[in-house]
């Protein structure tokens, strides 16, 4: 294999890997706050990208992206307030079905608004053929945007959860909701906030990715499955490990093209999901005993 080809697979793998990691972190934020897996997580990415694309003709690109992230964040909050907040101790099965139903509704609404067409945002710098030479290989500047934005988001999130009072309160809710409530933390609002946060990062990722991966109304479920694979691979709830797991999945998927036809790519990711669930459900980096204490 030529170095050029290798580097192309590599950068594609890294790009997708970051996207999967962001979706996985979105899962983790909500899971940590509520114990719920939000099956509509992929739809946030789709909404972010599609909204920015629709706004772009009316305003400059950065403004369109910021507006799209804000709108998606509001939708995330509304989802929690309307459909989840008032349920009294719902069963896991009930929550799974509700979030699946919501993902269908968001997708169908997107189909109604935007149709089936595949769209994309313009490249942030240059165009689809412009490239930057790094160590002898050509990389699209958009790839650097993706890596940069995702890395910044991950850093800010981890600082937020480690250092800020609000972030610490959210972790407290995750560790023990009742105890957090007794300490005077408004757990319900923290849960709304977790939906907003994961919608926001999903939407931001959906915007930076759009020039490379394109956006379409039905991109959500595929992303959700990959994001979930990554979340499990890293150990559910562990966001730093999710980044490593995301890059791993992205690269495996990207290089799999060398041995299998493109149409089998999805099968690989899904098979990895099943294998991890069967063999190491606590994740590659997780601890079995700790995982046994959590409610799945």
């Amino acid at each position, binding site marked *: 294999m030529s170095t050029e080809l290798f580097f192309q697979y590599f950068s594609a793998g890294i790009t997708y890997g970051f996207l999967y990691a962001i979706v996985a972190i979105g899962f983790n934020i909500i899971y940590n706050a509520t114990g719920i*897996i939000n099956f509509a997580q992929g739809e946030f990415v789709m909404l972010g990208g599609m909204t920015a694309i629709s706004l772009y003709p009316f305003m400059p690109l950065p403004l369109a992206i910021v507006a799209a992230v804000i709108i998606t964040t509001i939708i995330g909050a509304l989802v929690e307030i309307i*459909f989840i907040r008032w*349920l009294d101790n*719902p*069963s*896991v*099965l*009930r929550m*799974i*079905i*509700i979030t*699946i*139903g*919501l*993902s*269908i*509704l968001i*997708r*169908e*609404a997107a189909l*109604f608004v935007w149709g089936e067409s595949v769209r994309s945002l313009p490249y942030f710098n240059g165009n689809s053929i412009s490239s930057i030479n790094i160590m002898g290989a050509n990389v699209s500047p958009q790839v650097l945007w993706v890596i940069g934005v995702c890395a910044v988001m991950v850093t800010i999130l981890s600082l937020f959860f480690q250092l800020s009072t609000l972030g610490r309160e959210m972790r407290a809710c995750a560790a023990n909701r009742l105890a957090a409530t007794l300490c005077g933390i408004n757990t319900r609002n923290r849960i709304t906030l977790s939906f907003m946060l994961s919608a926001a990062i999903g939407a931001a990722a959906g915007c930076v990715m759009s020039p490379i991966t394109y956006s379409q109304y039905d991109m959500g*479920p595929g992303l959700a*499955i990959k994001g*979930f694979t990554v979340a*499990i691979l890293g150990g559910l709830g562990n966001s730093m490990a999710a980044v490593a797991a995301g890059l791993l999945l992205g690269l495996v998927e990207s290089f799999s093209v060398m041995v299998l*036809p493109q*149409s*089998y790519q*999805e*099968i690989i990711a*899904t*098979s990895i*999901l*099943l294998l991890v*669930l*069967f063999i190491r*459900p606590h994740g590659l980096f997780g601890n079995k005993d700790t995982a046994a204490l959590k*409610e*799945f």
Partner: protein
Amino acid sequence: MRHLKKYLPLAVMALMVTAVQLLTSYTGTAYYLTQLTITAYYGLLITGLCLLMGYAGQLSLGHTGFFAIGGYVSAALTTHDLTACRNDFFITLLNHAHLLISRHDIYGEPLITVKAWPACLAAIAAALLIAFIIGIPVLKLKGHYLAMATMGFGIIIFRIVMASTYFGEADGISDVPAFTLLPGLTVSGDFSYRTQNYYIAWGLILTGMFLLINLIDSRPGRALRAIHGSPEAAEAVGINTARYKLLTFVISAAFAAVAGVFLTHFNGGIGPSEASIMKSVRYVAIIAIGGMASLWGALSMGVILNFLSLRGVFGSYDDAVFGAILVLVMLFAPNGILRLPIWRKLNFRHRDG
């Protein structure tokens, strides 16, 4: 007599099935029978899934995978021409076992394929085997993990049929021949077979309901409900919970596979949409509306909603309607719409289970 009471709904259902056929025949609306036949096959899958979800308490978001395995294997075996490899050892063996048939395709070209009966049995056997193998690790999982694993299984089946030329990629398999069950009894979408196919499909579902009604009221059926309610207490009375869950998974996969085989021969083909995750979600929705642990609830909701969907009542909002139903039912009537308090207020008597 006490034992026969539980079969009363079956007798009522048989009468209704006959009445509907006679009604369509008198009113000249026999074209409804085609959709009612398809509805019945989906109903078969739904009742099997209801046993798994409602009684054994195991969610499956990939059940359409077993339907697809049944349909696709039977379709592929009965349509792929074996003339080119007729001298291979295995094919010769099949031929000597009288499992092959020479016939002509719709363009009059001669071809050699597997006969419908052995193809049907092979398809069901394949589904059972896969259910058994996949069931062992999958059923160890709970909650979100179980949901994702079953959905993952469904996605893999969908991607395999989309990616392999043997299963026709995005086009699926067409020109699947009719399936003669017995002389004079043929599963076929041909106009002249319409009435008998209606009775084949509904006869199959009556048989399925008979088996399931017996099961849920028996020793193993009680054990399943115990596993659903309290797995630890179920083990404590000597129930091998892993084995019971697995057997139930295999039985419900068999229901789905049989439905897949029959519907494929009835439709004369199968496409990847039959294997899509959206279909699996739809079946789960129907069972949730019917009240989870209610075979009759699941069957009646399945018949009503699938029939309306096939009639095109929901138009291009088909998926949206099912999504909305899922959300609304889970928000406001998590025990199914048949158990909403309003029915009790109307003094509408119903028996749970």
